[in-house]
């Protein structure tokens, strides 16, 4: 397996023919996804995220543009080569799409049968995969005998069976309850760490991005609004995704004494006590919070400075600590 394959999307367009009129579903998407990353694509329904992920394994044929998986342009492949390349891309679905006529083990074996793997080898691989997704011993169960979370585990095992470089997730947790969602997301992260498989997921749930993604993109009306690594997004005050990922702040009167602070990583953990020492008196903490985003803690705080605090000196001090601040 050649894991950690990057995906580069260049000028991707998809137009649908609606009553003789071409309606763009994707309107020129350029996006780089780092190999081995978990990348989330956020958007409302109708934003084009489903079309985008379906273009990545050519369940939809792009109208224009390139989709480079490693060195291969998926958008340009003929049918035979496409089928071969599709084996490098696993996919999991919101409604699982397991074959009901097959047991869990037989479902997981399906991609291996297609790839022409011999029966003894298939059996060995299926056992490993059942173990990997925490379903050891449940191989003989039919999908109708499994819970939603278990079905998605089978879906994940099936998607990983042929050792893909990329795993596509089409709202894979949207049909699951909160606890099961957390378990499935844990499994996806575990799989990503262990196998190095690049994961592209689409979701309308911010919490999914927050809990497992390294990078994210926001899609609106078929266009990419923004994209980047999560840690860069939260550090960028102009980023909408960054705003959403950070804790919300209460409204305050703008009297020039309220400061919004933002920080990521270690520098900010002790910022309140450090600022108290610097000022000689303590600022009031009015709201905010600290979140885990992409594995690091990021904070967003709203404080009120004492009357006699010198703003310039406060900003200079915060700057030395790598804390971003703005008067609210």
């Amino acid at each position, binding site marked *: 397996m050649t894991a950690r394959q990057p995906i580069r999307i260049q000028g991707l367009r998809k137009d649908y023919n609606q009553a003789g009129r071409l309606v763009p579903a994707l309107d020129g998407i350029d996006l780089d996804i780092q190999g081995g990353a978990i990348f989330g694509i956020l958007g409302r329904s109708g934003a084009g995220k489903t079309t985008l992920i379906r273009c990545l394994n050519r369940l939809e044929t792009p109208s224009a543009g390139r989709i480079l998986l490693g060195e291969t342009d998926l958008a340009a492949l003929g049918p035979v080569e496409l089928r071969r*390349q*599709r084996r490098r891309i696993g996919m999991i679905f919101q409604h699982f799409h397991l*074959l009901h*006529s*097959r047991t869990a083990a037989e479902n997981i074996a*399906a991609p291996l049968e*297609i790839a022409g793997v011999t029966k003894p080898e298939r059996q060995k691989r299926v056992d490993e995969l059942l173990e990997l997704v925490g379903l050891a011993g449940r191989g003989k169960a039919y999908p109708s005998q499994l819970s939603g979370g278990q079905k998605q585990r089978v879906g994940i095992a099936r998607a990983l069976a042929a050792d893909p470089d990329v795993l596509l997730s089409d709202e894979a947790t949207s049909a699951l309850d909160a606890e099961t969602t957390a378990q499935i997301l844990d499994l996806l992260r575990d799989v990503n760490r262990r196998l190095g498989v690049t994961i592209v997921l689409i979701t309308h749930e911010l919490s999914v991005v927050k809990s497992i993604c390294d990078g994210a993109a926001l899609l609106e009306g078929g266009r990419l609004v923004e994209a980047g690594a999560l840690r860069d997004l939260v550090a960028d005050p102009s980023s909408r995704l960054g705003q959403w990922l950070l804790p919300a702040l209460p409204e305050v009167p703008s009297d020039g004494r309220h400061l919004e602070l933002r920080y990521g990583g270690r520098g900010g953990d002790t910022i309140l006590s450090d600022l108290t020492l610097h000022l000689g008196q303590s600022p009031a903490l009015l709201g905010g919070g600290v979140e885990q985003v992409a594995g690091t803690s990021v904070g967003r705080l709203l404080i009120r400075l004492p009357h006699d605090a010198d703003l310039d000196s406060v900003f200079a001090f915060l700057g030395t600590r790598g804390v971003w601040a703005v008067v609210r």
Partner: protein
Amino acid sequence: MNPESFSELLDLLWGASLETLYMVALSGFVTLMAGLPAGLALYLIDGDGPLPRPRLHRVLSTIVNIGRSLPFVVLLIAIIPLTRLIAGTSLGSTAAIVPLSLGSIPFFARVVEAALREVDKGRIEAVQAMGGTLRHLVFMVLLPEALPALLSGVTLTLVMLVGYSALAGVVGGGGLGDLAIRYGYLRFNTEVMVATVVVLIVLVQANQLAGDWAVRRLAHRR
């Protein structure tokens, strides 16, 4: 020549039942062999299907519709030349298999098409996304996933064939329907009529129960 005794009646019924079973079994087999691929083709080449060939689909669909629109008794007579060509004769149980098959193939093809349409599109896409070929689509997804519906369709078709075969008497095909018409209707022989009706009911019931049992067994497993 009315049946004089009970054993004579039994002989008549037995012979007619065998003729009916012979016609239904053979035409059922031919229908399955031809209707399944036809229905599969109808599904695959549909405009929304996995192998869209809209023009060819329209042609095939029209042929099927023509076959479906003829009342069976009309078809039976209209294709006598064809029957003679295929069976060597236009008379008898074996000859009746030609119109019986031709009458039920279009019906079964539609049943197959409808059953395949019920297969969740997502499961088909899942196998396409694995890099599956058309062969995989058909044998890994379409046929296995639609199997319960296909079995119901086979039961439906066989029951219909029992009904069609009652008209086979028109071309000297014999069978239970022919017996009922000749003795029960033309000779006012109530005993034969009632006995024939009973045997037909038993035949259809047995067929239906066996079909339902098979479908339930499959569904149970899934």
